[in-house]
């Protein structure tokens, strides 16, 4: 038996692990805006702040929609992305975004408190949650990349969406740009969601330790390889530790500047975790288990 180590290779004609490179910053931005927009919308509907709900819809459509359009090689044909919802998660995402926008707008124009408004409130909430998780299915649908091919991703997307929405909300309410009728302790909610996300990311990455060799290679790139600086700097230090310390020890009492800093730090961590998960997506060697 001849021992074999599988190298990480680029475009050269050598068998080994290969990194995906076609989904990068624009897809990461689309995911980011998709989650923050839907998160803001969910919180705004629950806390009765229609203007912020509208802002969530705009971020979803302009931010996510715009980033997706820029990503496309042929943006003028974007409408074709709607033609295969029976099998393609990208198609489903486009449909879900459209349905969410229509339901959200109807909810916003209906007279508050009316029976129809009550029904559309529930529909709007459900569609926003579906929007938040579908991007997770888009990533999860790639059998080639074991790091992404896990049912944990949609959950991670949902909790990040709620955290992103809460962070922005926390800032807007504290700065006096929005007021909420049911008095909710946004600071406690923010802290709880940071901890939930921290645990979620730890479990997700931890599960890769016992997964396939390819998944471990992705993990190695993330925590020891060329992306480790960004991971520990932006995701762990800024996204988790800084936000948690500031929220726990200063929080709302630290003033708008501190709350703004918490929001900014959270959004930086939020963008980079998904950007890095895209960047460390590794394919298994072509022959899989068939090796010499």
């Amino acid at each position: 038996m001849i021992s074999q180590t599988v190298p990480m290779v680029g475009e050269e004609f050598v068998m080994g692990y290969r990194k995906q490179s076609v989904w990068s910053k624009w897809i990461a931005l689309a995911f980011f805006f998709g989650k923050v927009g839907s998160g803001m919308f969910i919180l705004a509907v629950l806390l009765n702040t229609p203007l912020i709900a509208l802002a969530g819809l705009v971020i979803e459509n302009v931010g996510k929609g715009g980033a997706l359009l820029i990503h496309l090689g042929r943006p003028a044909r974007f409408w074709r992305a709607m033609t295969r919802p029976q099998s393609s998660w990208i198609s489903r995402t486009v449909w879900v975004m459209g349905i969410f926008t229509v339901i959200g707008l109807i909810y916003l124009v209906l007279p508050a408190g009316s029976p129809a408004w009550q029904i559309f409130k529930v529909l709007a909430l459900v569609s926003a949650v579906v929007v938040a998780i579908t991007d997770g299915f888009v990533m999860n649908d790639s059998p080639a990349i074991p790091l992404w091919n896990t049912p944990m991703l949609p959950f991670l997307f949902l909790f990040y969406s709620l955290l992103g929405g809460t962070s922005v909300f926390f800032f807007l309410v504290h700065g006096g740009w929005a007021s909420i009728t049911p008095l909710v302790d946004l600071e406690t909610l923010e802290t709880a969601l940071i901890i939930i996300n921290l645990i979620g990311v730890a479990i997700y990455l931890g599960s890769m330790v016992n997964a396939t060799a390819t998944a471990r290679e992705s993990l190695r790139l993330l925590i020891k390889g060329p992306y480790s600086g960004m991971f520990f700097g932006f995701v762990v230090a800024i996204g988790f530790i800084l936000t948690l310390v500031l929220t726990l020890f200063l929080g709302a009492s630290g003033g708008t500047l501190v709350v703004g800093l918490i929001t900014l730090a959270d959004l930086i961590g939020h963008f980079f975790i998904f950007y890095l998960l895209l960047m460390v997506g590794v394919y298994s060697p072509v022959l899989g288990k068939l090796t010499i």
Partner: protein
Amino acid sequence: MARYGMVIDLKRCVGCNACTVACKAENGTPPGIFFTKVLEQVAGQYPIVKKKYVPVLCNHCLNAPCVRVCPSGATHKREDGIVLVDYNKCIGCKACVVACPYKNRELMPEGKLKEGHFKGYLTPFEQVKYKKFQEGVVVKCTFCSERVDQGLEPSCVNTCPAEARVFGDLHDPESKVSRLIRQRGGIQPMSEANTDPSVYYIE
């Protein structure tokens, strides 16, 4: 109905890359874009080292993830099992590139078809061949469907000096590909991905 497939004999392949060049000549792909290539695999430590050449190309999988994830219907499967991309429908979302477990798809980037092999000057050959491509869409091996439709073999098979590549109908039990798979124990690449490739390897 036929299901076209290929058997690649790793014992015969000498790594000459004649197939790679024949493919480029047939399809006229721009620099850096390969529909087929031959990967080197080295195992062991000096002085016990083993080297093998593994030709790779789109496996025209029966259960193709690239077809499933394509949101526009541009990637489709013909009745004979050949998986093709309709460049007029492709929106360039690259979902299929990410979904192909074999990384056998490539994006035709912006500017690629103007650049050519000589940076800004297109040879008459390139001018003719590049007409069928579009920028911003995804391209891949077609099993030389235009040749196959005329009863010819794919160009790589036709060129291989070692007869390491054999093309034929997997549904015909008497075809050479079916016999080789049966007699020599053909193995599908990355069978754990459940894609049911139409390309088999024998050793």
